[in-house]
């Protein structure tokens, strides 16, 4: 009976650790994704601003 309790506790601990690791990994991945999106978004925003500032149709002489 005691053996099966130990096994159950062990499995529970492993599951808990797995859950924690998974949660950490998810958090890290999410942060990485957010970081990526942040960097990419900033660059895209910057390109858009630069585009809007510089790309203009040709103007004829008044």
């Amino acid at each position, binding site marked *: 009976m005691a053996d099966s309790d130990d096994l159950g506790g062990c499995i529970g601990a492993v599951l808990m650790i797995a859950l924690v690791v998974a949660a950490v990994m998810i958090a890290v991945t999410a942060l990485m994704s957010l970081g990526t999106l942040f960097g990419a978004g*900033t*660059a*895209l925003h910057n390109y858009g601003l630069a585009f809007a500032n510089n790309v203009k149709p040709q103007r004829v002489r008044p």
Partner: protein
Amino acid sequence: MSTATPPEPAIKSYFFDKGYRDLLSTITESWNRNVASSREHFDKAAHLFPGEVADKGLAILWGTAGVSVVVFGTAVFLAASAIHITILLTFFLLIYIAFSLVYLTERTYLAGKKFFTVCPECHAKSSLPEHFCPRCGEVHRRLIPSSYGILHHTCQCGEKLPATFFLKRGLLKSRCPDCQSLLETGHTESRKAFVPIFGGPAVGKSAFLFSAVSQLMDYTARSGLRSSFLESRTENELDRVSQQFAQGRSPEKTLSTLPRAFNLKVQADGRDPRVLYLYDPAGEAFNETAGLVLHRYQAYLSGLIFLIDPFTIPAVCAEYADRLESVRDALQPSKLPIEDALARILISMEEHFGLGKTARLKVPVAVVINKIDAFDLEARIGEPAMRQRVQSSPTPVDPETTRDELLRDQLCRWGQGDVVQQLETRCARVHYFTCSALGHMPDGSGRAFEARGVLEPLLWILGEADSIFAAERKRAA
């Protein structure tokens, strides 16, 4: 010396010019903005890092954000720049293909129609005249489908100009690219026939030209063709000379050895317009081979009229010696021997036209003996003599062949066998004609001049050069 084409006073297509300046400034600004963004994040991280734990956490976050901007921002910047460049190049290529296709189509169409530009003033041939902007008057040297526009060019003043024949570019005011003389639409967008009238001084070239044009206009009216002048200058000139003829006065002597072409536009219903370029160079041009006018327009010759004054022939002068002196002033015999005039034409052809020393001139040559109104020449070699020969022939004969034989024989009898031989050996297509460009000798009586036989040589050459005249000539015959 630079040979680069000067820029047009037009706005270049965005994808050929400004697009690349915009691309460069966009890329530069975008990169600078990325650098500034990442620097801002790193500065914040550096500022917060020495603080409490929470500040340190925030500093790490800002630092990570800075790294993210550097790494992923650069990747996105590169991707966005690549897309921008690809779009520009794609449009560049599409526009390049489009204007090349339109240009090639236009060139092929115009070549098929045998349209090209010839300046009536300097006689230079070109594929395209220079066009004026109708609003600001700027000169557009190459108003063709190009990097300035596929179908239209936008002048720097904002006016849209058609850049192709198909959009009626020819209606714009234009000028010769060589001498800057103003051109009419007909000088460019028409089929052309070029007929110079050659001969020594005082053989009657100007009288022949004006009489032939006058009769050609009557002929076209009878044939259901429409004839008109390209320029009022030409019309006024013909009116003035016609009035002189009506009063029995000869036209003034041509002074220019390289005169402006006399243009006449002829059009049949449903057909492209034809523009005749008739040239009447001063006979003095033949006094020196080097100055021979022929070299300016021989490259596109349709045929030539070689006018002969029979009174340059010693045998003719001898035959009429008893009566010649009394009419010498009225007759004004030419002083340049026929063989010299012909030799100078052929030498010029050899020097400037690439005609081999023994090669034959392919264009039709009408040899026209003028001044047959004098004495009894008309009865001897004119149409009455030809008709008599035709009628007296036991077998049916062709009038043209009979006329050729009659005049060839007569020229030989007058000691011009060498001239006939030269003509027959050096010219592939020769016909002989007679005419009286004035109708009678200028006698001061005021009796109107009425030319005879001037139209036939011109019609024969035009018929050889252009199907529209060939059909009319056949119909008339």
